[in-house]
């Protein structure tokens, strides 16, 4: 048999995959990214990719009165916070700038100084409510990737959901209706800091208590997802 034969190539690929010798990198489970305030005078300008920030900053809208940049250690991610609005109606809008991963909108943003988590919407925007009066330009922020996600797909013939865990080793150990909520359980939820509900119509933090997450019946749809961080 020819060593380079099509059959041999296919068998090698088959064995490589079935034996688990090839593994893809899942960017979903990335370690957290820490953003520190960007200070121009401290930067080594030769190693710093100004082009990215410049490219983004020219897209500033007229309503933006002030912008601050924050950078990750590896320079792969940047955070831009704009002060928007005027006269008592001021709010902060942040945006993660990266070409590294498509799906940063599955992440949440954490501010250690305020011990507060923020959602990233589908357009990649983050509203930092109630922050405009603080010296937020000195704060640090963390982009937190999900520990896991659970896709809920309703079975057509009954009230049950098929629940797909992104990481099969972190599957749910219980799922039942209690009063007006669907309650899902896993011991690992005790280590979870935040849980987010996401469907076509609704996207928000959801109640996490001990080893369970309660999803109000009013939010239940045929297809939705819970992210835990």
């Amino acid at each position: 048999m020819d060593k380079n034969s099509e059959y041999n190539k296919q068998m090698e690929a088959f064995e490589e995959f079935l034996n688990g010798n090839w593994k893809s990198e899942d960017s979903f489970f990335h370690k957290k990214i820490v953003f520190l305030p960007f200070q121009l005078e401290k930067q080594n300008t030769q190693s710093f990719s100004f082009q990215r920030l410049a490219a983004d900053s020219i897209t500033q809208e007229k309503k933006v009165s002030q912008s601050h940049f924050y950078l990750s250690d590896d320079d792969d991610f940047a955070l831009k916070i704009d002060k928007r609005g005027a006269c008592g109606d001021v709010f902060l809008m942040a945006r993660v700038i990266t070409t590294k991963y498509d799906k940063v909108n599955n992440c949440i943003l954490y501010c250690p100084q305020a011990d507060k988590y923020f959602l990233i919407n589908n357009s990649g925007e983050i509203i930092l409510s109630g922050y405009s009066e603080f010296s937020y330009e000195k704060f640090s922020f963390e982009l937190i990737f999900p520990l896991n996600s659970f896709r809920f797909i309703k079975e057509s013939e009954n009230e049950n959901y098929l629940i797909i865990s992104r990481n099969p080793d972190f599957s749910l150990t219980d799922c039942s209706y209690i009063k007006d909520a669907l309650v899902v359980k896993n011991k690992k939820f005790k280590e979870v800091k935040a849980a987010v509900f996401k469907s076509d119509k609704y996207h928000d933090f959801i109640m996490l208590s001990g080893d369970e997450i309660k999803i109000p019946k009013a939010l239940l749809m045929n297809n939705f997802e819970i992210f835990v961080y």
Partner: protein
Amino acid sequence: MYELYRNDFKVKSRVQLNRFVSEIVSIAREYINYLVYKNKIYLPDELTSYDAAIDLVAELFSIENNKLTTFSYHFKKLKPKPKTKAEFERALKSYVCSIIQNNLLGLYKIYDPITFKIIRNIKKAVREREYYITSYFTDKYIHRKPVDFKKGECIHRELLLTLYLKNDGSISANVTKIIDALFGIIETQKEYLSAIALQDLVYILKELITIKTEDYIKNFKSEEPKVFYKLLIQKLRKEFIFKIKKYLDKKNFSENDCKCVYNIIEEVLNHYENFTCRPSVRVLVETHYRGKNKNSFSNKIEYVLSLLNTEILKIIEEGNSYYAEVFKLQTESE
């Protein structure tokens, strides 16, 4: 999972069912990533391998009397039967991969209509001509007489494309005729097998349809379609560079390799804009690439060019109903 198999896929609890479904989706996601890694398929921007996996295996989880009937049926007729956990896991992975291969067309229908139309026309040609199809792990092979796949390898798709363009100045608008002509070429190449991998055929047809469409536009007496086409290419130039940058970042291309890719895209688009044939990938890589890993880089360029052709065909089809008619001429079998 093994416990389920031993109980003929009778599900004891929802927890067990959910765990099993999660494992299957995980295998499917990994296989889709493997096909992308092997240059066999590409995923449109808006689709992740995880979402694709859920779509492609959803049909497997039908339950009757607490039994996962599809899995039960498959493993009942499987010979030899897996006797250990390791054997079962291999058999299960293999089954899930075969399901993905069979269902890929449905995914293209929703997310990549250009590739869907091309594969549909290939299938039609295979039926008409009663060609053979042999399925292997990462691809299906089409051949018009029995082939021993242990005796050699298939001709590389870029070489086949080059030979076709050299042999046949005029490209037929009919997919069946193009496939016939391709077989005519490979059957004279004694050092290669007389078979074409389906995904290689898709790659070649995308390129030929792009050339044919350009050719059609070039031969218009009026200048309007030519100007329209050039504008489309200029628009694509900006959009595609942005799109491909994401891919290069994800794949950790070095700065030099990125520059090479951009230069190659620029050269190919210049050819398209001027209605001339692009050089082969080998020549493009020889001209622009200075690194050591030419083979691996060539594979990546083929991937990029396949994406580029898909984008061109997409914008022509979407651009204007009149030009969509022009395009239709090339993708619908007569």
